[in-house]
């Protein structure tokens, strides 16, 4: 046995351990940021949509113990009186009597505070929601088995970009949850409120039993007001006709709720100081990406103007295995001029030529390729669909694939697998390119 170490020697040994660790690479930061964006997206979706379903459960009488989503968002809680300073809490529903009164004034006399039961002397529920009175005209006009609620909250994101009005108004799609983005709703006094969904293909992409709409109003101090308005049922399945009837029912309240979200009676009032909020801008390109996301399916996520394959989800799993690395596939839809199309589709040595196909009566040109970069050893590939419109513009819907590998793994079969995977999207890309609702814009020139 060797001589006994003293404390200093033991600590010195401890401090010399594990100093030769592998260095940090740029890919580490990029991978963490990608994972962080996914967490942020899910928190945001959980905060907006999860709260909606929980609220609905309360209304239809299903026991709900809480609606906390744990998303960490700072929400301004209603102060006790007009003179009180806004207080902040990790998560709270900021909807007291003043805001409830604004909602009830907008929605009409056949609405009440959710949970009210005049016969039992209960005049207000704890959730801050309002709902149609049972047997009232509003409730009777809903599809059978449906109920609805509205709730107002005031948000102060405290500089968190992911909770800014501009961010929330951007089109968003992830794993079946779709928000097609905000549209402007000019108010009589010249101010502007913003409205998001629902449309026939919004809400749950799988045909969910509820529909949700959001009304926003940005305020001078950077805070914003949101009214969440939802109609739905606890039934697992609903018909398209029922869903459409609910959406039409919700549309009746659009002018009233747009005015309510900007009402001067909303509490807390904005702080006197602050800058004018930046109006959210949804570009034509944003809307085209929404259309393309629908064509590609739920494996594709649209977030902050970027349409990408969701990692480790759905179609990602059909890609060849990539040990110690990850695939990144980005989708885009733009218009190009005819000369660019001719250059891309003409058969050139070493380049993939376009194949001409007819899809739903439209002539589409398809091209896909995959290889491995000789220098970086990373995989790359592309799948593209071109559609020449009557006005001569060419709509290009394409996917670009790249790989990131911390260690390069040699596997000759992977290029073929990648090419096959890219080719499998021919129909979806053709659908996107020929979609008559696609406006067609240059992504570079229209980013908001």
């Amino acid at each position, binding site marked *: 046995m060797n001589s006994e170490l*003293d404390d200093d020697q*033991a600590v010195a040994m401890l401090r010399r*351990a594990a*100093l030769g660790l592998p260095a940090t690479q740029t890919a*580490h*930061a990029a991978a*963490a940021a990608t994972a962080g964006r996914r967490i942020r997206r899910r928190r945001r979706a959980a905060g907006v949509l999860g709260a909606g379903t929980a609220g609905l459960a309360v209304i239809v009488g299903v026991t709900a113990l809480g609606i906390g989503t744990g998303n960490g968002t700072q929400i301004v809680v209603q102060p006790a009186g007009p003179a009180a300073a806004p207080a902040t809490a990790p998560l709270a529903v900021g909807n007291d009597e003043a805001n409830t009164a604004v909602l009830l004034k907008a929605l009409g006399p056949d609405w009440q505070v959710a949970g009210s039961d005049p016969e039992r002397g209960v005049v207000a529920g704890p959730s801050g929601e309002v709902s149609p009175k049972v047997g009232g005209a509003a409730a009777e006009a809903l599809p059978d088995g449906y109920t609805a609620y509205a709730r107002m909250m005031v948000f102060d994101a405290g500089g968190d970009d992911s909770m800014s009005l501009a961010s929330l108004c951007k089109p968003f799609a992830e794993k079946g949850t779709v928000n097609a983005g905000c549209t402007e709703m000019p108010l009589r006094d010249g101010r502007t409120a913003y409205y998001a969904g629902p449309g026939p293909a919004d809400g749950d992409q799988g045909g969910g039993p509820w529909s949700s709409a959001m009304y926003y109003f940005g305020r001078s101090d950077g805070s914003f007001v949101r009214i969440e308005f939802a109609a739905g049922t606890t039934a697992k399945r609903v018909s398209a006709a029922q869903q459409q009837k609910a959406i039409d029912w919700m549309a009746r309240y659009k002018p009233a709720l747009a005015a309510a979200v900007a009402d001067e009676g909303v509490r807390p009032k904005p702080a006197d100081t602050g800058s004018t909020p930046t109006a959210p801008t949804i570009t034509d390109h944003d809307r085209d990406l929404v259309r393309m996301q629908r064509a590609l399916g739920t494996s594709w996520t649209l977030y902050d103007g970027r349409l990408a394959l969701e990692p480790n989800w759905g179609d990602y799993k059909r890609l060849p295995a990539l040990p110690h690395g990850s695939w990144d596939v980005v989708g885009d839809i733009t218009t190009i001029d005819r000369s660019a199309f001719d250059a891309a589709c003409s058969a050139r040595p070493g380049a993939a030529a376009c194949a001409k196909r007819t899809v739903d009566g439209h002539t589409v040109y398809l091209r896909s390729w995959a290889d491995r970069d000789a220098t970086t050893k990373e995989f790359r590939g592309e799948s593209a669909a071109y559609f020449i419109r009557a006005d001569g513009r060419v709509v290009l819907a394409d996917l670009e694939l790249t790989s990131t590998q911390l260690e390069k793994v040699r596997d000759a079969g992977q290029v073929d697998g990648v090419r096959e995977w890219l080719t499998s999207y021919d129909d979806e890309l053709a659908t996107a390119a020929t979609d008559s609702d696609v406006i067609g814009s240059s992504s570079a020139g229209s980013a908001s």
Partner: protein
Amino acid sequence: MASYDEEFAAFVTTSRSRYCRVAYLVCGDWHHAEDIVQTAFAHVYARWSAIERSEGRHGYVRRAVVNAAIDESRRPWRRETAAAVLPDRPIPVDDGITTQVLAALSSLAPGQRAVVVLRFIEDLDVEATAALLGISTGTVKSQTAKGLAALRTVLSTGRLNVGDVA
């Protein structure tokens, strides 16, 4: 002014190795140490501003990494997965000292190991260590003493050359 992503990349680049080292010494598994740190960074990215306002980004990552590493070492069965082929990810260079120190640290209880690493690798004082682990300062002091004593014994038994580290 640096963008959000640039700030984050700089934060990761400058601090990742440090936290990987802490996680590695606490949980003893390099692959899991990397995963733990990466998860902590992802959460920092998701709540960049909020975390800075509360406990600070370094404070958050340190706490998340240490707690996750303790958890890993307490419940190793959670991280076991069957694989047909052994992974060939990069691992730290075996410098002899690291192997001995890891072996010595593995003889400590997970909480005691975390106390020793925080006190002598992260150079936290007794109060900060107690706050991070949610234990009393008295416990930190006693765990430090017991941990060092155990390290001394194990390292004395297995060390190759005391003169290298004195």
